[in-house]
């Protein structure tokens, strides 16, 4: 039953619920009226029969007193006008029968099994009423009336017929009304469901559910549409993100390739050349007999090897700055600013030494690269003349501010576009990867300030992932 109801369409649920409620209420009301009617009707009938017995008794006082059975029977025979009186007995003061009356169609006497001075009982579909006959305060006899319950049963039958008719008609009327009215509730839900089905099947996120009214269903439709809007916005963002990630991956490959080529050409152009010449110089030693010439060749070879060493160190530094590992982030950033200042003829001010705690290598590398990127951005894209790098820190965070006096940009429009946007995007991604964040304050002609804020106790799990 429960499952059967659960799987019914809303339209039918509403109809079933309404009909069940309507018929239950009607039935309960009918039963209440029915019971009330029966009780009051029986009471009324009882009063009627009791007063009839009283009248008969009052008329029978002389017949009882003077023991006149003939007159008593004549009095009882007047009950013939009451067609539901089946049998009647007049008892004297000693409960002896003085006279009886029997309806002509009744075949045998219906004496009560128990005679009481006053009261009534129901037996075998009959009402048996006793009324005392009193003369001057003294009970001189009893009238007993056996009354047929046919009127009660007839009324019962009529009532049941009326109730069933009214119930049937009401349920039909209720069904007609509910069938019409339920569509106000079920139609918006059906429409919403159809829209959801269409979106699921066709994937068309531009579809929207039609809603009306300010009720819960209206709110549901509105919520559904808002949800679709949000999904659409997120979809666009996600696609943009994916595009950037793909671009970033390609860029990374290119950068790596370029870097490799640079290192290769560096090694080829300088170190290899120097080592070749040094090799040549050393091989020439065997040909020289002159001690001075040998010494000169060795000196030249030493110079070449020293040059190669120096070149190799420089390359190593660019590839992976050893200062970062040896002296920490603060010092590495200091040297970076100096290097950039000399390399790009840029005025770079470093304000550091505030960070009290040691920053882990992973975070240091990311921050170092980020600052480097920002400095190069300031030179290349912002045409800045002066850049300030400020490092502060607390127990659990490190905060680096890179502020330039360049041309600036419109953050909302420029950030996601172009190579500078790509750089910022990349930094933001890397920072978020270690639980940090980047705040950019920029305006056209007012320079750019970028703040990198990173928690020191970066979650290992985050880093490892």
């Amino acid at each position: 039953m429960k499952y059967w109801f659960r799987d019914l369409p809303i339209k039918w649920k509403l109809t079933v619920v309404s009909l069940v409620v309507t018929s239950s209420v009607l039935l309960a009301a009918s039963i209440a009226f029915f019971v009330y009617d029966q009780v009051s009707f029986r009471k009324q009938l009882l009063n009627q029969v009791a007063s009839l017995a009283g009248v008969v008794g009052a008329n029978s006082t002389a017949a009882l007193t003077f023991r006149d059975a003939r007159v008593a029977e004549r009095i009882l025979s007047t009950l013939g006008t009451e067609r539901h009186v089946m049998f009647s007995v007049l008892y004297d003061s000693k409960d002896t029968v003085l006279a009886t009356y029997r309806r002509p169609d009744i075949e045998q006497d219906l004496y009560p099994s128990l005679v009481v001075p006053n009261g009534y009982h129901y037996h075998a579909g009959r009402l048996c009423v006793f009324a005392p006959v009193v003369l001057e305060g003294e009970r001189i006899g009893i009238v007993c009336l056996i009354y047929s319950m046919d009127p009660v049963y007839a009324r019962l039958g009529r009532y049941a017929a009326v109730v069933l008719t009214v119930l049937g008609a009401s349920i039909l009327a209720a069904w007609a009304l509910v069938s019409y009215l339920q569509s106000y509730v079920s139609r918006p839900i059906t429409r919403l469901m159809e829209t959801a089905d269409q979106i699921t099947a066709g994937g068309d996120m531009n579809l929207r559910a039609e809603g009306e009214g300010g009720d819960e269903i209206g709110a549901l439709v509105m919520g559904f549409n808002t949800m679709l809007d949000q999904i659409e916005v997120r979809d666009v963002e996600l696609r943009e993100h994916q595009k950037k990630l793909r671009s970033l991956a390609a860029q990374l490959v290119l950068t790596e390739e370029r870097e490799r080529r640079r290192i290769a050409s560096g090694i080829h152009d300088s170190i290899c050349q120097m080592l070749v010449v040094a090799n040549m110089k050393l091989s020439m030693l065997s040909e020289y007999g002159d001690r001075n010439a040998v010494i000169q060749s060795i000196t030249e070879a030493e110079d070449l090897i020293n040059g190669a060493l120096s070149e190799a160190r420089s390359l190593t530094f660019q590839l992976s700055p050893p200062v970062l590992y040896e002296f920490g982030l603060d010092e590495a950033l200091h040297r970076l600013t100096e290097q950039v200042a000399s390399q790009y003829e840029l005025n770079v001010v470093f304000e550091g030494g505030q960070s009290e705690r040691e920053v882990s290598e992973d975070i240091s590398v990311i921050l170092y690269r980020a600052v480097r990127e920002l400095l190069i951005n300031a030179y290349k894209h912002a045409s800045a003349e002066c850049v300030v790098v400020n490092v502060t820190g607390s127990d659990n965070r490190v905060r680096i501010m890179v502020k330039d006096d360049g041309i600036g940009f419109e953050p909302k429009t420029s950030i996601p576009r172009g190579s500078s946007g790509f750089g910022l995007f990349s930094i933001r991604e890397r920072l978020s990867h270690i639980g940090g964040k980047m705040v950019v304050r920029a305006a056209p002609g007012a320079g750019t300030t970028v703040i990198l804020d990173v928690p020191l106790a970066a979650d290992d799990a985050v880093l490892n992932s």
Partner: protein
Amino acid sequence: MKLLPRVAVAAGVVLLAAGMSRAQTNAAAPGDVSEYRLKAVFLYNFAKFADWPDGTLGEPGEPIVVGVYDAKPFEGAFGDLEGKRAKGRPLILLEGQTFSELEGCHIVFLNAPDDLLIKSLLQRLRSRPVLTVGERTGFCRWGGIVNFSMQEGRVRLQVNRVAAEKAGLQLSAQLLEVSELVDKGDD
């Protein structure tokens, strides 16, 4: 004038026997109830079905007096009726043979053995507010008001409404209903 002696025991036994035989018969006068017992009960009950002229019954609470010319046939049938009440008054029984003894009674049962004596007493009681009761054929014709007549072994009532009117008595319709009316003295 003397009060009847209480002979309640014998009457009580008879009554008990009658009460126990709750035979559902159509009998108006059960055979085991004696004629005079019935007459005694009827005499007392006339007080409930008759109205006397104002003032005749005396102050409230004063008794209604039932006079009997000869109490012998009753054989104590009055015993358990003593102390009964009607119209809110006690009923008392008097036995008396002379007019002076009977004229103060409200109900008088004239069962004198001599018809002439009865007629003479009736003559003198006629215009007085006394309910005269007899048991002789012709009692109503002689001017009596109620007569016990034996019919088919049962005690029947005969009533002379003219005599009742003369005596200033009002008999209830119910009493008249159970009685044979002999207004013209045709009993």
